[in-house]
């Protein structure tokens, strides 16, 4: 029969031991235990107790194997190549090291696309650099002005958009058209053209496009000269055109006989 009082005492002492172990909260020195086992093994070998020595060796081997297999696997950061393939650039990584929030957002998004959880991302890039997916998308969105603001905050003197004209810069145009109407056009010449011709283009300089002129291209009076048999080189333009200039009148007054006859005809 089991003595009831002894059983109760054992139970109480066992529970007390457990409580003391939990309360002490001291980590057991496993290294010391391993050293004890190793020393005991050496002693057994020395005194010729080979059986116990073998048993201890087996036990040490088991412990070593167990701790090797139960150690947590080392997590590896995705390779740079896979990060690049996922859309991260070298510039992003450099900016990330400078705490650029846009780069942080990009790194967060890329790591998420590679299948890493938020906890894993925190272990790789630090908990302070972790962003929620929504926040990362909002910050990395190129349509938002956050990135431009960040660049401006870093160096307000740097133009945000170098392709645009900055205040204080002079603008110089260069015509790409191979058109004589615009060739060599300067603001001064444009103003002069506008004053003289009513248009800013070089219309006065535009030569006729036809190389060989025909009757239609000429004034009607000059067109007759083309069919004339002779041509007086000394004749004035007035003679050639059949105009009669009255000497007593102003030199600028020109009368056309045919025109008068036409006028009289009209009167009649």
């Amino acid at each position, binding site marked *: 029969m089991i003595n009831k009082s002894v059983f109760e005492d054992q139970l109480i002492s066992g529970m007390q031991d457990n409580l003391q172990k939990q309360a002490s909260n001291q980590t057991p020195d496993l290294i010391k235990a391993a050293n*004890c*086992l190793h*020393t*005991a093994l050496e002693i057994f070998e020395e*005194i010729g107790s080979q059986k*116990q020595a073998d048993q201890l060796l087996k036990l040490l081997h088991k412990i070593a194997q167990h701790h090797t297999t139960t150690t947590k696997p080392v997590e590896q950061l995705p390779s740079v190549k896979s990060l690049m393939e996922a859309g991260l650039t070298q510039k992003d990584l450099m900016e990330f090291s400078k705490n650029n929030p846009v780069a942080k957002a990009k790194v967060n998004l890329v790591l998420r696309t590679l299948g890493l959880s938020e906890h894993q991302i925190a272990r790789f890039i630090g908990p302070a650099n972790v962003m929620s997916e929504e926040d990362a998308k909002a910050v990395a969105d190129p349509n938002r002005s956050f990135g431009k603001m960040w660049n401006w905050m870093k160096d307000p003197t740097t133009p945000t958009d170098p392709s645009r004209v900055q205040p204080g810069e002079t603008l110089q145009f260069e015509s790409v058209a191979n058109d004589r109407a615009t060739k060599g056009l300067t603001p001064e010449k444009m103003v002069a053209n506008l004053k003289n011709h009513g248009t800013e283009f070089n219309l006065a300089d535009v030569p006729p496009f036809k190389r060989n002129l025909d009757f239609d291209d000429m004034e009607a009076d000059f067109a007759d000269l083309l069919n004339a048999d002779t041509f007086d080189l000394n004749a004035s333009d007035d003679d050639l055109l059949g105009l009669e200039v009255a000497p007593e009148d102003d030199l600028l007054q020109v009368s056309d006989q045919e025109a008068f006859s036409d006028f009289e005809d009209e009167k009649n």
Partner: protein
Amino acid sequence: MYKQASVEDELYRSMEKSLVKNQTENRYGFDKLVKAIDLLSTAANIFDQAGMVKEANEITNILEGLAQELK
């Protein structure tokens, strides 16, 4: 004064005792065995505290086997 005969006798017995002890130690290694048992006991306690019951039980089995051999 000391009795010379009793001193000699005491010295003789003491030396004899030491010789026997050394002979048995050399032959059986009792001191070392005791030390090894203490070490095993310490290791078993540590494993027990660490919750490594399996390892602690194995050490206990080794000690039990040793005790059986020494009987």
